[in-house]
């Protein structure tokens, strides 16, 4: 799939990132390299190989589970500690609805 500045811009937009034209050009190059690498991988025959979703996956590798038990949460003040703005025990963010 050919990649151009438009695709890079769209992905940057979805990630809430902004780049100037030179940066966009540079990323087009990076994206192309990555895709070329995947194209190389396509050459490997994966017939009869079950698809994996994680590198460590195997027949017996199940995600660990925990029992349904409540443990104490953080104090509210601690939970809000990293928030740039907070008020009345809430995180405060710019208006979502105009």
């Amino acid at each position, binding site marked *: 799939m050919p990649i151009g500045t438009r695709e890079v811009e769209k992905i940057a937009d*979805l990630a809430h990132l902004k780049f100037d034209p030179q940066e966009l050009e540079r990323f087009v190059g990076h994206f192309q390299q990555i895709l070329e690498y995947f194209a190389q991988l396509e050459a490997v025959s994966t017939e009869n190989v079950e698809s994996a979703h994680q590198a460590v996956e195997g027949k017996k*590798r199940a995600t660990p589970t925990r029992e349904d038990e409540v443990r104490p949460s953080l104090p*509210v003040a601690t*939970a809000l500690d990293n928030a740039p703005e907070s008020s009345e025990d809430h995180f405060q963010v710019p208006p979502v609805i105009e």
Partner: protein
Amino acid sequence: MEFEAVIGLEVHAQLLTQSKIFCACSTGFGAPPNSNTCPVCLGLPGSLPVLNREAVAMAVKAGLALGCQINRNSIFARKNYFYPDLPKGYQISQYDLPLGQDGQIEILTGVRQEAGHVGEYQPRTFGITRVHLEEDAGKLIHQQGRDSYVDLNRTGVPLIEIVSEPDFRSSQEAYDYLNNLRRTLLYLEICDGNMEEGSFRCDANVSIRPLGSSELGTKTEIKNLNSFRFLQRALEYEIERQKEVIGGDGQVEQETRLWDEEGQKTLVMRSKEEAHDYRYFPEPDLLPVVVSEEWIEELKAQIPELPEERRQRFVKEYALTHEEALLLTQTRQFAEYFETAVRTYNQPKAILNWMMGDLMGHLKQDHREIHECLIRPEHLANLVRLIDEGEISGKMAKQLFEKLYETGDDPETIISQENLQQISDEDQLTRIVDRVLEANPEKVEAYRAGKAGLLGFFMGQVMKETRGQANPEMVSQMLEGKLRSSP
């Protein structure tokens, strides 16, 4: 041209676990803001999710109850989007391999007549595309023109998403499906089904096409359907709206619309989050969810008789109408109350009437659920039996019901305590009737002269004498007999 509607529903149901899906914070509703949070659900860097086993168990039960194939291996995926209710910038959900897929349910659905009433019921099969597990997002509190507030208590509460096939052809079918789905989750005890509080939420996809066509038209997605009434009205409105657009040679736009209850219409939702490009990819922090054969068998064994089965059994076993059976099977507790009562005294219709009338009325008034009510099903059954056996009159039964409801005592105890027995002894009643007639000779004359309305007066006198306990039918017969015969 005639059109038909094509509707699919997407339901999000909060699971009734104690703790969240990927951390041990409480799922309790109504806790002080941000008091049920930790590094995992706050999305702090370096924290890792650990899956709640009970959430998987509940989701598997839902999948089984909806006839789904349960995937022995299923995969969590990240759904990426930016919104302040989602602290990590992605929601852990499922995409490629959901926990359950390819299900179907057969239910009776109403066919409506022109007047809008359900005329008859027909069995219909609806497909379930998938049932998957995911985490809920937080809650935003918007303030007009000012900063928004975020409460992350709900972040990480386990949800199942249940996606139907676009199999509904009318708002009634969608309604019946949703009602059945809600009852099913209640019976499984995995969701409280509260639409107003948002623990059971529904979005609808709606399109129309010429009748007989097999192609799908352009669909709109409708959100904000937080009651059954809203769902039905919104669907009806949207179907009509699309017919008008197409009838006027226009085109339906693919868009998200919101139901506006106040204006009774759907409105286009304008949002910055319209970019439906979630860039799903496998969640690297979680390995596949493995559900063993033994576990599935164990969970299967825990599934009770489901509401639709029970409804159809009630129709057959107790000769009830579909509507009556539907009312009785709304919740498992209600249905079980009915069956216990009927086992005590086999008069289903009379018991149903007491349950739907006096009992429901009282429960509603007191905001109580049936399992919180003092009157035992056996007692209610005995109340009905006492009426049938002529021990008490219908009027006395009402009084007795009040006492049963208040005290939880059995009817016999109350009858003897309150001296509520009906007087059906012929000799005793004859004496009282004679006394009343002797005390009112002018009225007796007037009656015999043609004033038939005076019968009510004599009845009233007898009732007064017996504090309402005389058997009214017997008294009425006696009075008529004695008044007809000349002295």
